């Protein structure tokens, strides 16, 4: 008896759902994902936007009082006694270091990533799949573990120093770890697959008869690279640069572990304000500045893609 009622109930539920117009069905299917992302993804972002205009509480948290202090703090230091503002550079420097290191990581990734992607794209299909698989695996493996492994390489007693001393470049161990060099190398190493994969995807589609034609017309290798291969893989190059720049700019682990927490980037500044420094509004303001930088980069990239698609069409 009970079982039968179950079946009937289910049928009516199915019927009711099936008889809804398609748009309503879509809305119902979308709503759980939207509710979750709205509540625990977007609402928190709105909250820290609000927090960035409040006053810090003494033991963390916020005092609900409107203030632009957090944003002013980026550029000026308020004297505790007479309240005068003096211009200071330390936070601006952190911002500049983040942009420069992320930029260097992009350049490094491009210099290694393009030739690698090209080399892979010109292999026979079987080998090509193996090589792409090898590039893909680090893309999905634990970033903390990878950064930690880079720490082992750069340590004073690590293998890199042994090699440098072995071939006589260095007399005593170089302190490679906890430097800007280590952070840059860490970013390059962390996000290299993000550059190789999109460039590979666009190089793979190139029609090599174009290259052949260019050689027939007496172009040399450099001209072919400059006039054919690079222009045709430009969407992949742009995508790769974007995909490396964004996570590098907001990186936390590389500067924290490889920079030893002394050479801060924006990501560390934010974490610090919500941790030991207990200045949530300032951390929230830093997060908002980082988010705006990322969204600007995203818009520039999206516009470029749209323009290219228009040109193709």
């Amino acid at each position, binding site marked *: 008896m009970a079982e039968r009622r179950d079946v009937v109930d289910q049928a009516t539920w199915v019927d009711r759902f099936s008889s809804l117009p398609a748009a309503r*069905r879509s809305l119902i*299917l*979308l709503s759980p*994902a939207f509710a979750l*992302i709205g509540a625990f993804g*977007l609402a928190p972002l709105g909250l820290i936007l609000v927090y960035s205009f409040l006053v810090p509480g003494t033991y963390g948290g916020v005092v609900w009082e409107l203030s632009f202090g957090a944003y002013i703090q980026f550029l000026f230091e308020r004297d505790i006694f007479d309240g005068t503002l003096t211009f200071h550079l330390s936070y601006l420097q952190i911002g500049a270091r983040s942009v420069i290191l992320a930029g260097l990581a992009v350049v490094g990734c491009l210099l290694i990533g393009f030739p690698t992607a*090209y080399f892979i794209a010109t292999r026979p299909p079987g080998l090509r*799949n193996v090589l792409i698989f090898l590039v893909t695996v680090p893309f999905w493996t634990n970033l903390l573990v990878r950064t930690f492994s880079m720490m082992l390489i750069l340590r004073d007693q690590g293998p890199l120093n042994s090699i440098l001393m072995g071939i006589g470049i260095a007399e005593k161990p170089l302190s490679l770890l906890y430097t800007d060099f280590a952070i840059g190398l860490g970013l390059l190493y962390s996000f290299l697959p993000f550059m190789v994969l999109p460039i590979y995807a666009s190089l793979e589609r190139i029609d090599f008869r174009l290259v052949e034609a260019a050689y027939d017309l007496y172009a040399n290798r450099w001209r072919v690279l400059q006039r054919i291969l690079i222009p045709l893989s430009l969407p992949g190059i742009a995508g790769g640069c974007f995909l490396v720049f964004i996570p590098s700019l907001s990186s936390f682990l590389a500067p924290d572990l490889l920079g030893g927490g002394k050479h801060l980037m924006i990501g560390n500044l934010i974490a610090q304000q*919500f941790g030991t420094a207990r200045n949530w509004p300032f951390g929230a303001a830093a997060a908002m500045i980082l988010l705006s930088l990322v969204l600007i980069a995203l818009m520039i990239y999206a516009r470029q893609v749209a323009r290219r698609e228009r040109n193709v069409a």
Partner: protein
Amino acid sequence: MMAGPRTFDLKRYPGFGFIAAVCLGLLYLPLFVLVFFSFNERRSVSNWSEFSLDWYAKALANDAIRQAATNSFLVATVATISATILATAAALATTRVPRFRGLTGCYAVINSPLMVPEIVTAVALLSFLSLIGLELGVGNVMIAHTVFCLPFAYLPIRARLHGMDTALEQAAADLYADPVQTFRHVTLPMLMPGIVAGAALAFVISLDDFIITQMVASAGATTLPVYIYSQVRMGVTPEVNAVSSMLLGVSIVIVSLAVLLRKKETT
């Protein structure tokens, strides 16, 4: 020097092969060093003495590690299941309907966890959870993970739906199957490879996460990456290498499965 014009390989660029080797070396050598020293008998991660599995035994016997590993797998499992279900529903809603106004907006909302930097998400969630006073321990971590795993599950499922021929679904509808039946007997089985790939990626992403978990997790809700981080800050021992190697192994196996599955699907 290049050989004569007869054997001129127009695809070849001298030096590119070398750079590709450097690239793969850079990606893998640190990981090899990490795994290599996890088998070191002595308490050193730079001087090799003798092969030993002691550090693995120590790690597996360590209660803190076991607790963290349990949390990690629990969180990853719950986050994967919920994210995959929500993502499948969302993918159906955004592909199997005529284009509607605001579709681009829908994509933007679903993919927004991908666009917001992790550190920003982390501090935003920390502020939000402490404001609303939600203290579910591991539950908080599960909610956070479900949110950022969603787009990773959504993208392969949507891609699969896009590539699927609608002829079978139309045939089912012609034979008086209602939308739910059509989904259950036609769409879902065909969609399965996409769902499994999406679930695998969501699982790996959840297992991988450090910064958001670090901010959101309370004392008892430590996951493996959070544990490894705290140990690395304190000093490096082969035990940390052993735990890291095991985590690495799990990620690599799952990613390989996802890749193999996609390959099978395309051939």
